[in-house]
């Protein structure tokens, strides 16, 4: 477990608990989706996972070690765990892209040459090297999202926390973003992302934690969690379309139990195609 949350409590000023006794484990190298409806406190949880917020009770463990909240502890922690918020405009500060991405590396105290190297690398891994000199306010929303991620990637975190990465993106924008995140995972980065979209969680996660009223009410493989329609219904969610279709196909005997369930729209249509033949 690279990251772990044990019985986290986060109480708001009004006495309302945004997180109550929340437990979560993040296995190294995986893509973990934190799935739940809007306003459930998913963003608050991410902020606890990199020490932006401090729990009123409970602990966060990094690599099995309890983390501290002193300045040096937080620095070490945030170097290893990067955070990308939902709204890219909240995360871009400098006049142009390269300058913005260099914010983190320079704060790490790296010499300029090395910081520049990190920036080039991060832009390349997001496939936005051509944007390096572009003023940030002239980017499209999808480009801004990728620049914001590059800003975190330039610090070479082991874990990247992403708040609703696909929010506001159209189909093509989402595809580009997920491809970039796939490359990061291939290089060894653990990815944790929040979403309210069951189809995205099914298409693009290894493990799912189901979030409801300040707790994780279930964590397991995507199939275990997303295939459990009754539990999903408690959270006012429906099973992913492709999964429902796949399960129906299995039930009808059109799909063998050792065959993979369709994950995406393309998989599902391919399955129907095979049926037709």
């Amino acid at each position, binding site marked *: 477990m690279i990251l772990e949350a044990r019985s986290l409590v986060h109480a708001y000023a009004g006495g309302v608990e945004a997180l109550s006794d929340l437990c979560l484990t993040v296995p190294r190298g995986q893509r973990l989706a934190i799935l739940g409806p809007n306003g459930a406190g998913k963003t608050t949880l991410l902020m606890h996972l990199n020490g932006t917020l401090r729990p009123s009770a409970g602990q966060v463990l990094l690599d099995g070690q309890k983390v501290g909240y002193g300045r040096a502890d937080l620095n070490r922690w945030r170097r290893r765990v990067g955070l990308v918020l939902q709204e890219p405009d909240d995360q871009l*500060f400098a*006049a142009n892209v390269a300058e913005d991405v260099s914010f983190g590396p320079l704060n790490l105290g790296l010499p300029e040459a090395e910081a520049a190297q990190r920036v080039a690398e991060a832009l390349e891994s997001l496939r936005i090297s051509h944007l390096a000199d572009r*003023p940030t*306010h002239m980017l499209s929303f999808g480009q801004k999202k990728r620049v914001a991620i590059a800003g975190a990637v330039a610090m070479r975190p082991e874990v990247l926390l992403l708040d609703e990465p696909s929010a506001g993106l159209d189909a093509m924008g989402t595809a580009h973003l997920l491809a970039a995140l796939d490359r990061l995972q291939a290089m060894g980065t653990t990815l944790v992302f929040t979403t309210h979209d069951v189809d995205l969680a099914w298409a693009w996660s290894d493990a799912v934690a189901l979030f409801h009223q300040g707790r994780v009410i279930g964590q397991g493989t995507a199939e275990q969690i997303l295939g459990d329609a009754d539990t999903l219904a408690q959270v006012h969610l429906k099973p992913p379309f492709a999964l429902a279709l796949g399960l129906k196909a299995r039930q009808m005997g059109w799909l063998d139990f050792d065959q993979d369930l369709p994950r995406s729209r393309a998989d599902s249509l391919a399955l129907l195609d095979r049926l037709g033949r």
Partner: protein
Amino acid sequence: MHIMEGFLPAGHALAWTAVSAPFVFVGVARLRKVLRDRPEMRLTLAAAGAFAFVLSALKLPSVTGSCSHPTGTGLGAMVVGPAATTVLGTIVLLFQSLLLAHGGLTTLGANVFSMAVAGPWIAFGVWKLAGRLGAPVGLAVFLGAALGDLGTYVVTSAQLALAFPDEISGYGGAFAKFAGIFALTQIPLAIAEGLLTVVVMNALVGR
């Protein structure tokens, strides 16, 4: 440098209200004229006021270890001018006293005078003067914002000294006392505010 609710004796509270009132009246009159010609400025001014409030909620690191916040009056004077800053500053001070219990209604007049009248005019004057004397843009901004902040603090110390003269050394001694105590936090803070304003103005020009 807010004077808290109830801190000034009634007579002083009334007197400072009377001193500040004309500045606010003139500012409001000018504002109404601007708004008649350009109604949409309502929203722009509101955004600027909200920005100033949020800026004052921003914690600035200070050398003494305690956290303090920028006054934003220098920035306001340079961006929208000192007269408009008086009105916006009054609105912000009202919200600070009502929402955060920082400042107060009885001390609103005194606080308006130090933070929304003296501060902006000093900052504006120093900024213009330094520019005219050939100082580099960054230095002029720094001096304006830093001295505007310091000016605010000197005025506040004077207001407190007038209200609470020293038994032995009178107003002078009292001023030395108040100025001395606040100097610990205010001088580093003035420098921080100066630097911050330079960063902001540079970034705004760069956009």
